[in-house]
């Protein structure tokens, strides 16, 4: 299956007669460079910017070259690529790729291909099928979490959430988005004990409700 993912590593545009030999040779490069995927996935969950940038940069060109085969303009390809990274992170956070067998680039590419296939109604499903198994098994596509999908209440909530202090936002983000429990958050944010953290979290929620109350009767 690996030969299909040559574009993953960005050598899709080699224009030489000995393309095949080169590609086989180049496939060894990422193996040499591979760091522990579990560690990468953990950093991805934490939203580590360096890790994100590395993933983004390493796969971007390959993905755009791949999209060109389906006559997708670079502008659209970048859009699909970015959405695929969003899905990748979402799935990392939801623990869906904790036991990922293939490498992360392969998985990211599979998401992108899936999106191309669905968004652009590409004819030849043939190219994609083996990847879809990988994707459908481990993927939640219900991550269309754009602002337009929010209810009126949720939009208010979002507005006032921004007015919270950084400390509150960190606690709530770690708890409600990244799925850490209070013991873990205590260590991450250096709280002296869990009780202090717990009452901090309650205060943050209360503060948010107060902000809302001023403007919105329901809460």
């Amino acid at each position, binding site marked *: 299956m690996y030969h299909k993912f040559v574009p993953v590593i960005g050598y899709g545009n080699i224009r030489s007669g000995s393309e095949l030999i*080169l590609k086989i040779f180049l496939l060894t490069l990422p193996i040499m460079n591979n760091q522990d995927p579990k560690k990468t996935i953990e950093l991805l969950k934490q939203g580590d910017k360096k890790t994100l940038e590395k993933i983004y940069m390493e796969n*971007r060109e390959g993905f755009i070259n791949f999209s060109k085969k389906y006559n997708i303009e670079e502008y659209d390809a970048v859009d699909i690529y970015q959405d695929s*990274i969003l899905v990748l992170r979402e799935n990392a956070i939801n623990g869906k790729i904790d036991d990922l067998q293939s490498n992360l680039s392969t998985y990211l590419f599979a998401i992108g291909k899936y999106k191309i296939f669905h968004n652009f109604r590409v004819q030849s499903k043939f190219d994609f099928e083996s990847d879809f198994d990988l994707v459908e098994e481990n993927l939640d596509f219900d991550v269309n*979490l754009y602002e337009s999908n929010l209810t009126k209440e949720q939009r208010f909530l979002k507005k006032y959430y921004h007015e919270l202090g950084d400390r509150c936002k960190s606690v709530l983000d770690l708890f409600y*988005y990244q799925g850490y429990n209070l013991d873990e958050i205590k260590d991450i944010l250096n709280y002296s004990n869990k009780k202090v953290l717990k009452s901090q979290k309650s205060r943050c929620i209360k503060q948010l409700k107060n902000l809302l109350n001023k403007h919105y009767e329901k809460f």
Partner: protein
Amino acid sequence: MKNFDLIDRYFDSSLTPKEQLLFNDLLQNDLDFKNEFVFRKDLKKVIAVNQQEVLKSTLGQFEEKIQQSSKFMILPKKWFVAASIILVASLGAYSIKSIYYPSNQAVFETFYQPCRNTIQPTVRGDNPNTIEYRAFVAYEAHNYHKAINLFNSVKNADEAYINFYKGLSYLELDKIKEAIEILLPIAKANGLEGKSANFNDKAAWYLALAYLKNNDKEKSKSELSLITQKPKGTYKKEEAQELLGHLK
């Protein structure tokens, strides 16, 4: 209030079966509990949307970085390694192939490099947002169809430097006849000035390559020998000499 803990335990999936029953019961029968559940569920969603937006804007920054600096500069180190290996390997492959008469196409591939945009630095900040500027942005982004359309719509569409990049865009799109039609007059033009100065030397080189790609070896050779007769320091003079050697 104590019961609200159940909600958070529900979110991190740590409810015991017994607690799950209590949770279900409260959700149906206790309005406060239900409201609190809806609130926290909304909060969870809102935070997720917020995080998505933050990530999206981070990705936007990466993308901007790519657009800003020349693509070459920001490639990670291992790509340089890859690039040099490709270079060495393709030189190796080339010398093996050249024993068996390389095709014109292969020779073209070896010598052809897209011409960098030296006219309009497409750097963010002083963004004039003129048609010409957008044309060069499209050219740099390898969006050659768009570039050609925009080059056709600029005010000074007849200027040599505009035509030059339009010609190169056609060349990139494998529309060689159009490319030759455009590049030929620039290569033969005399006394180009201002922004268009130097472009006839550049056009001559790419014209030679375009002929080659079109399998018109003789015309390519005569164009190349014209370049080799020009003074030292002429654009791609040495490469022209080398390429001429391969074609003989």
